[in-house]
């Protein structure tokens, strides 16, 4: 039986979340919370200049939330902050339009399946909300 939302990639990330955990001390951190389901997530970043040396997420949430955080984690290692910001914008756009406009975030493709389930879109975005907050903090404090 094919359970449409839970493709192999997502399930793999759920079972083996990449870059999970918490960097201590972190250069930047942000939490996100989904009041609907109680999902909670913390993103911590270690920086080197304008680059993300390491990004980790600690998640208490559903499969979509865990997989999305894990996929984001893979993407963020070693990229510049402005690159991270672009990824975030591209992903949000893709979640709205259903189209991936850049090959850079091709790895996030399995998450687009979530678009069919409006109530779960927030779960997919939770990690990215935390990223946005990290980057905002950055801009105002740097």
């Amino acid at each position: 039986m094919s359970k449409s939302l839970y493709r192999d990639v997502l399930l793999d990330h759920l079972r083996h979340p990449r870059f999970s955990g918490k960097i201590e001390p972190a250069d930047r951190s942000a939490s996100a919370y989904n009041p609907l389901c109680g999902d909670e997530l913390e993103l911590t970043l270690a920086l080197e200049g304008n680059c993300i040396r390491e990004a980790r997420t600690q998640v208490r949430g559903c499969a979509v939330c865990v997989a999305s955080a894990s996929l984001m984690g893979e993407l963020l290692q070693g990229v510049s902050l402005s690159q991270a910001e672009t990824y975030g914008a591209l992903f949000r756009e893709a979640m709205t339009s259903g189209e991936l406009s850049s090959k850079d975030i091709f790895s996030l493709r399995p998450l687009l399946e979530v678009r069919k389930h409006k109530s779960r879109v927030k779960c997919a975005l939770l990690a990215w909300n935390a990223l946005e907050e990290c980057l905002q903090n950055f801009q105002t404090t740097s």
Partner: protein
Amino acid sequence: MPDSLPMARIPDSIRQDFPVLSRIINRHPLAYLDNAATTQKPQSVIEAITRFYETSNANSHRGVYALSEEASELYEQARGRVAQFLNAPDTHQIIFTRGTTEAINLVAYSWGRSRLQPGDRLLLTEMEHHSNLVPWQLVAEATGAELDYVAVTAEGHLDLDSLASQLAKSPKLLAVTLVSNVLGTINPLRKIITTAHDHGVLVLVDAAQAVGRVAVDVQELDCDFLAFSGHKVYGPTGIGVLYAKTEHLDAMEPWQGGGGMIAKVGRDRSTWGEAPAKFEAGTPPIAAAIGLHTALDFVERLGVAQIREHERDLAELALGRLLEEPEVTVFGPRNPAERTGLVSFALAGVHPHDVAQVLDESGIAVRAGHHCAQVLHERLGVDATVRVSVGVYNTASEVHRAVDVLAEVRRLFL
């Protein structure tokens, strides 16, 4: 006088959309002329409600299953439709309430209770409906604030001198109707709001008699708050709207507490979601919101400008004929351009309830009483009035029928 209007802006065939209009009342075809109280509902609105219950009913917002997602989607689409209809900058500025009354109470509690101090002033007008008056009395009583009233002129306009001198007292808020439900007056709110803002005064607009009848654009008005009811704009009962500027919504505390409006609930205290959720505690009137969506589609299909002209033509007809009737006093502006499709009058020596009763015996539904505007009636020097108010489906011949019966009323009572 001819039975039909010079130009049929709205085809008579629209009547077929409204099943209730084919009723026979006291052996006469129903002439429904109480549209200021509530409008009839087109088939499309009734069907939208039925369709929701027959195919998509579920609680909105909280379920991950397909049916609940559909219900949530339909509910949020209704919100989007309202935002678009009012030209609100953002969908989050639309709060669903039971009606105009609840929307105004929401502001009186959420905004008023925390902001008003003893000695602060609130400015109303003499033509406000009780729903835009009593909530402010209650908040004034609770906070020690005081109420002032902008006077109404003999012809039924807001007295702009009175407005100016009242604004000079620096009230915290002006609560004013866009259209009077007794006089029909369309108040020049765009100008008034600019002046109020120049004095640092916020403005709440009661648009219950305006939405669907005259153009209402919240960005053009630049109002701080605006309220209206679905049931007066061809939509269902039990649904209404509060529009507010985002800065106010962000600053306001919630009013009602309960499911759906929270972020996290602890034993002693909780945190709140963002607008609109913050102001919509409990399961909303989902089906009615969906019906309102369809009602606004209906109105837009006809065109607010066309409706406006249709109703103005009928009001002009009613006004003209009533002014020729003996013993009749008509209230409100003489110029049809300054009023909507409602005309209130008194027949000297006959109580308005008796007038309405005799009209009903000819199948004509009009309203008699103080129309929830006792302060205005006191100003007009009468206890009650008879009000004829038209909608998109009314015809010149119905207006003629109503005025014709006045001869019979006089014969009976005078």
